[in-house]
């Protein structure tokens, strides 16, 4: 399987906008149902963007259902799920605590283990529990293509901070075994992450990070990122290329497309003209 070069993101659908809460609100009104999201995904698909890189948010399950039900319309449609939808867990931890949250979101097996009070079983087999959480998130994608499965940045970076590096390796191993997929890792600390993944024996890892001209949320700085990407020892997907709109689109994309060693770009847009314009510009610059 190969990593596709232009990917469609999902922030615009779920009321996420790093610059403006007003824009986020307007978007969440427009995309209140799966059909309105699907219409934009159709525009992207027809513009030649076959990958939807999306958070494992509940509504994504509805999108997956539509794709599954229409195989002739979407023969090449691929999902790159990004898990978990962290706010769901974070809000729950605030409400009921860590233990109750695990019970609330874990499949049956973990539930019963916790209820029987066999806590030692859980702590000794943390990997088993993490696998069950992965399975719970992947339920929404049964029957559709998920060649790459990502760990969201808040989890990747939490693990990086805690130096629990082996969990990154475990995730890589598990998605291969169970879903025949490659693991991807989203991060705000790209140079650090790539080194750690290499140490874990993951060759040419798939990583996704902010890559933009102004260095917004690029820990280590623009120069360090450019240098790391140019080493070509990881498959790097650039996100937040426009830095949430702080850089004019054309300038932003020209800069990122000119980077040595960059593999892919993920971007989100809501209008057909923006999608087509951006895709065309990337195609031109990359000779796709």
């Amino acid at each position, binding site marked *: 399987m190969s990593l596709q070069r232009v990917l469609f993101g999902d922030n615009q659908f779920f009321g996420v906008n790093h*610059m*403006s809460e007003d824009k986020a609100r307007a978007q969440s009104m427009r995309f209140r149902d799966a059909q309105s999201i699907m219409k934009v995904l159709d525009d992207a698909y027809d513009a030649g963007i076959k990958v939807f890189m999306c958070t494992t948010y509940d509504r994504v399950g509805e999108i997956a259902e539509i794709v599954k039900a229409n195989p002739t319309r979407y023969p090449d449609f691929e999902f790159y799920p990004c898990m978990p939808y962290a706010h769901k867990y974070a809000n729950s*931890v605030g409400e009921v*605590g860590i233990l109750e949250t695990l019970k609330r979101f874990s499949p049956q097996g973990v539930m019963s283990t916790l209820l029987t009070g066999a806590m030692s079983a859980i*702590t000794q087999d*943390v990997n088993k529990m993490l696998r069950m959480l992965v399975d719970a998130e992947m339920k929404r994608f049964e029957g559709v293509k998920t060649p790459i499965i990502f760990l969201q940045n808040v989890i990747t970076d939490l693990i990086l901070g*805690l*130096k629990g590096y082996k969990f990154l390796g475990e995730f890589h191993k598990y998605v291969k075994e169970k879903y025949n997929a490659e693991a991807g890792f989203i991060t705000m600390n790209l140079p650090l992450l790539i080194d750690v993944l290499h140490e874990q024996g993951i060759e040419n890892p798939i990583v996704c990070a902010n890559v933009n001209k102004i260095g917004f949320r690029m*820990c280590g700085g623009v120069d360090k990122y450019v240098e790391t990407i140019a080493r070509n020892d990881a498959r790097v997907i650039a996100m937040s290329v426009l830095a949430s709109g*702080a850089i004019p689109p054309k300038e932003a994309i020209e800069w990122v497309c000119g980077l040595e060693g960059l593999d892919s770009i993920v971007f989100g847009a809501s209008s057909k003209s923006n999608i087509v314009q951006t895709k065309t510009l990337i195609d031109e610059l990359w000779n796709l």
Partner: protein
Amino acid sequence: MVKLALIGAGKMGLSHFAISSAHPDVEIVGVCDNATYLTSVISKHLGFSTYSDYKKMFKEARPDAVIISTPNSTHFDLAKFALEQGAHVFLEKPLCLDPAQGRTLFEIASAKNLVNQVGYHNRFIGTFQEMKRLIAAGAIGEVYHLEGKAYGQVVIRPSKSASTWRSKKSEGGGCLHDYACHVVDLMNYIGETPSKVRSAQLQSIFSADIEDAVFANFEYASGATGYLEANWSDQSVRKMSTTITAYGKQGKIITDRQEMRVYLTPGTTFEDYEDGWKSKYITELQAPVNFYMRGEEYSAQIDQFIDNILGRDVKVESTFQTATATDEVIEQIANLGKG
């Protein structure tokens, strides 16, 4: 190198743990929590020394500094013990449930020349920092009204029994000590500490033992007024969202985590702000951090704590002193809101 220990490995504790563990000048020497399912994972899978007894941790690990992220009602005893052991203390907010206790802690810390900081992370967000700068420089003229609002979804359904300390008044739970204190502290930071809380209401929406929403009116020495609204039972927002609005005689500023919108009255200008509306975004206002996990502000506050311990020349923001001023306002709101 700072030898750092953590007491509390819950939601905020884990966050501080990861950020400080990634700091190049920090060595984590111990993690203490009474939840054994957490500490056993931390020791077995992450290889850190863990404890269930903080006194034992101090004796064995001998930390230079400690980060305390435990239920609010335990803050005073733990912080006092840590300071008495000579450790620098970073404490999750709010400082204490009784302002007198906060004052005691500040006195001990000052007498022993120990770094003391409280986790009011909004003070480290670029948009709010710029808003403070503009107001102090008189960009919108005399401020006559300040408004602070925070919404989020923590308690969104009735619960028969209190399931965590956050839903127990006796342990310092409730929207007042969880959400509203952030707003009070941010308003104190951007403007000034109110001279008086004029009125307040605490409202339970879903909870039995605690308030889920807080409304309060402030008076300032300058004659300005203030209004606070905090509600953690609002499902219309995806995550906690805080907005501060300042009304001045020559303009107005509305700021949240992402964006600062400035309006200057006709003919008024300030630096690159012309009259009319202008927005500035977090992308240009936020200073970069060395390790990012969940927002620059969470890293920046830990960086400041460590820099201060190492005696580097940095600003000291959110000390036990400013956090006590916040606790004093909270106490007034609590007293007025009871009726």
